[in-house]
């Protein structure tokens, strides 16, 4: 994994281009940024619509078939055949999804949120925003949900939004080899990362129906450049996304214009009168937040060890596919067994929203209540837990369900399938939250005080989700927007804060754990406290591979081909009189730029003899972006190796530098705020003494016993 070059390279080519561009050109550029953001929102909404419709139909088909089968066999016997059918169906569908991920695009596995967090942080994980990843992700998530795994489809939506943004903003598709000749100015890391923020926000907005939550998610994760215009554009993209989804889903449900499904997950309306809360319930909510934090820490801990086991022993694709199939089959088996042995029967009410009520061994006119929890898509189960009448769930049923689903979800996250963890966490939390509500109502003498267990289900869901993912600001706003009721803002915020504090004492959030396991050099919001005594001198990498301003091609090729050190940025120094002193810094040049120069053979001798057709422009660099060819594919003959290359026009003539004694937090702040990739450390005579990169800064963490330096693994 490498860094993103967010910093602008203000070389002479860039200055020339800016001189050539008219004011009209700049205004056009601004308008086209808005157009791109609108397009991003629209396409993300369409993709979400597609996923929702596909899942609804396929899952409906599956439940129909299995329900009819169970009903037949309840009467005549042979229910074990139903069990095998259900397990087999799950395994087959999940096998399809898992093959797509494991064999075609492994980066599309998991929820996608850790990868997008890294991208917004400035780390370029390879292949994370490619078209292939999008296709595998979308079909993978459909297969996972239809296959009955304990997963959600909201996390993959965020990743999909980011990929759409990265693709649309470039105006071409490298995978499909088509160039639409549009948006050529945006073909660099700076612009692309801004659009990916918009895409991630559009994804969140389509997933939850929470546009403001989406904006805050992007800004919380990627806030190195907090720019008002960018925030406004991201908000625009989010709004378009949720509106598109709402509109097209309402057309699909034949209620055009009703606009009642703003997101993939719909928590339903929380009517103000029936679910108001009282001041004396706030301590209870905080207690539930603490429970959520504890359970979340347990979930993360178990998942951490399972993931380590998977990384160490299950790294071949066919093993991963088999594991996914087994998990799907076991999920079916556990669900079926729980439904089979459950004695909880509830009467069938006409206004009941159960679409697939299973009667099994209940009396006629009643249905099995355990089946409402297990034999349904998780989103519908969450909705039922929030809104069903008090008394429609048996405490024992809920308790057993919470327990089994907790372990199933913990086992499922991290498989080689494309799936999220939001909905399972919400479901677990809603189940034990509702249980708390029911228990409170039973222990108090006046049952009407603790009126609605649905309210406790909501608080439990927020607590559990906060305990697992430890997102604060964006999650609060997402939950408030998804419930459509601002009065819940205060309890949800308190609950999430409590869950985060309690959970952070034990272990990190789930996404942070997975990022760490991938050895990604992730920079947090601030440098660790008490690290002011560390200076740049102790943190930097030294000695640095520098290049002269006019350098021999052979040296450049050898430097780039050196596999032991995979550098991406080289300080450019003025040739010094004495050879042992390091030269004075005059610029910084990147590997990608050198490769383009080598490809176009921009040598001093050739320019002199006018063998090159035209002068190189920024356009040539942008055309090669983002997949620069590796140095091995550039062929340089022996004669060419003796030529000289002049880097003056192309290098960044004013790279950011710091003196040697700069403290670590100061270096960190500069790095993070400006989105740098390389920071040159110079002495008092402007001579290059070292180079600070992301990997050097990401090592330092605040551990249990003070500042510690971690080892990063090669990826």
């Amino acid at each position, binding site marked *: 994994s490498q860094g993103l070059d967010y910093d602008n390279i203000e070389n002479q080519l860039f200055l020339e281009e800016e001189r050539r561009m008219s004011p009209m050109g700049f205004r056009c550029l601004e308008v086209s940024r808005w157009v791109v953001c609108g397009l991003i929102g629209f396409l993300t909404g369409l993709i979400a619509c597609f996923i929702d419709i596909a899942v609804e139909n396929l899952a409906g088909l599956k439940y129909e078939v299995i329900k009819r089968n169970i009903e037949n066999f309840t009467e005549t016997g042979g229910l074990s055949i139903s*069990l095998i059918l259900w397990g087999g169906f799950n395994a087959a569908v999940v096998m399809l999804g898992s093959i797509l991920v494991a064999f075609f695009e492994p980066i599309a596995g998991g929820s996608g949120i850790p990868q997008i967090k890294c991208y917004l942080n400035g780390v370029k994980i390879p292949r994370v925003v490619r078209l292939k990843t999008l296709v595998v992700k979308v079909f993978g998530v459909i297969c996972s949900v239809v296959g009955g795994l304990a997963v959600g489809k909201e996390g993959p939506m965020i990743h999909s939004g980011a990929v759409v943004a990265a693709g649309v903003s470039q105006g071409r598709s490298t995978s499909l080899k088509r160039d639409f000749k549009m948006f050529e100015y945006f073909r660099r890391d700076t612009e692309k990362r801004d659009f990916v923020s918009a895409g991630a926000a559009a994804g969140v907005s389509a997933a939850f129906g929470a546009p403001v939550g989406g904006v805050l998610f992007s800004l919380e994760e990627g806030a190195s450049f907090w720019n008002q215009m960018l925030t406004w554009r991201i908000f625009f993209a989010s709004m378009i996304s949720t509106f598109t989804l709402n509109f097209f889903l309402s057309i699909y449900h034949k209620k055009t214009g009703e606009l009642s499904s703003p997101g993939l997950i719909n928590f339903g309306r929380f009517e103000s009168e029936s679910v108001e809360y009282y001041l004396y319930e706030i301590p209870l909510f905080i207690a539930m937040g603490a429970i959520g934090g504890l359970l979340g820490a347990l979930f993360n801990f178990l998942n951490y060890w399972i993931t380590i086991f998977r990384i160490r022993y*299950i790294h071949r694709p066919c093993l991963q596919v088999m594991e996914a199939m087994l998990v799907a089959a076991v999920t079916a088996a556990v669900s079926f067994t729980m439904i089979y042995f459950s004695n909880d029967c509830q009467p069938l009410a006409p206004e009941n929203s159960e679409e697939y009520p299973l009667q099994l*061994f209940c009396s*006629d006119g009643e249905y099995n209540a355990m089946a409402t929890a297990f034999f349904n898509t998780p989103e519908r189960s969450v909705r039922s837990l929030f809104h069903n009448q008090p008394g429609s769930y048996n405490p024992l049923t809920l308790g057993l369900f919470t327990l089994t689903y907790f372990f199933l979800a913990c086992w499922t996250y991290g498989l080689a399938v494309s799936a999220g963890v939001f909905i399972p966490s919400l479901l677990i939390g809603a189940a034990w939250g509702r249980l708390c509500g029911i228990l409170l109502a039973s222990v108090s003498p006046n049952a009407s005080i603790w009126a609605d267990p649905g309210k406790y289900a909501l608080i439990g869901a927020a607590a559990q989700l906060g305990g697992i993912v430890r997102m604060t600001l964006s999650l609060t706003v997402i939950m408030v927007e998804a419930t459509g009721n601002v009065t819940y803002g205060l309890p949800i915020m308190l609950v999430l804060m409590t869950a985060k504090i309690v959970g952070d004492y034990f272990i990190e959030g789930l996404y942070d754990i997975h990022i760490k396991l991938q050895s990604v050099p992730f920079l947090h919001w601030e440098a660790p406290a008490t690290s002011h005594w560390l200076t740049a001198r102790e943190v930097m990498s030294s*000695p640095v591979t520098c290049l002269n301003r006019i350098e021999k091609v052979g040296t450049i090729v050898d430097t780039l081909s050196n596999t032991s050190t995979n550098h991406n940025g080289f300080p450019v120094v003025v040739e010094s009189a004495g050879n042992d002193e390091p030269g004075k810094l005059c610029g910084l040049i990147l590997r990608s730029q050198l490769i383009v120069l080598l490809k176009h053979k921009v040598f001093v001798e050739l320019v002199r003899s006018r063998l090159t057709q035209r002068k190189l422009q920024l356009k040539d660099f942008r055309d090669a972006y983002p997949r620069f060819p590796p140095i091995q594919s550039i062929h340089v003959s022996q004669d060419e190796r003796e030529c000289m290359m002049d880097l003056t026009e192309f290098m960044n003539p004013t790279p950011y530098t710091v003196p040697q004694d700069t403290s670590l937090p100061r270096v960190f702040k500069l790095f993070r705020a400006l989105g740098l990739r390389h920071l040159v450390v110079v002495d008092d005579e402007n001579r290059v003494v070292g180079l600070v990169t992301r990997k050097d800064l990401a090592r330092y963490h605040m551990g249990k016993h003070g500042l510690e330096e971690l080892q990063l*693994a*090669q990826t």
Partner: protein
Amino acid sequence: MSFNQNTLLVVLSCICISVCVSGEVVSAGSPVFKTHVDPLYSLNLLTALNDYSDISQYCKDLLDLFGNQYVAYVNCLVPAARPVKVCQNCFVNFENLNKTYTNISSDEVGPAGEVCRDSLLRSDRLMLVFLLFSNLDGIWEKSNCKNCISSDSPSLTNDTLYFLAMLNQTYNCFDQYQQGNHTELCKNCKNTYRDLNILYSEMEKNYTMCIDIEDAMNVTRRRWSKTFNCSFPREENVPIIAVSSFMLFLPIIFYLSSFLHSEQKKRKLIQPKRVPQYSSLMNIQDKLS
């Protein structure tokens, strides 16, 4: 001249309405002006009534008729409460009541030039007649009796009659085998009961049932499942446990075999390139001392 009379009345009502609106208390003995309906309506009322303490004989007769039919309907309803037979038994009574009420609430003018709707239905705050009828009408709507009564002739629909016949058949079967062991009953009446269920599901798919049929079905189901205990027993415990244990066992085998057979993937650590004389250890000690 009527012109003078009307003008006087208009002026009078405008003054009174404005006084009411401004919040002052009008004299207590004028019930007419206590209504808060539009001034034009009060005007109509004034012109319709000759003497506001009595209603016309025509309207009184209508009211009596309404009262009698109301009583008849309720007397029919209450005995039919359990088991619910309100649609079958009382639909004729409701038709009559409905007709009378429609008559009362219509626009037609009586022999003395009055409109009974205004005097009976809207003269006071309580609106008793209106309330009583809407209550009964609400009950009729909730029972969905429309679906059992055919629209052209005042009788039950063919579907309803067919269902009731099948229900009768089922009950006969129940009564026949009731004395002995319930397993006999379960076996012999199973087909009849199943046909009844199928018929009910068919009817349910087409439209919402009226309460009579719904309740009859519920009662029959309760008898079948709870009283006679004829629903399916759970007899496949062993095969289910066997199959699910097998399925739960498979992952354990899988993990064990991959633990034992795959080589562990080791991590290669990146060593930081640092300037040797400024190695961190020395500096930490310097700085902390």
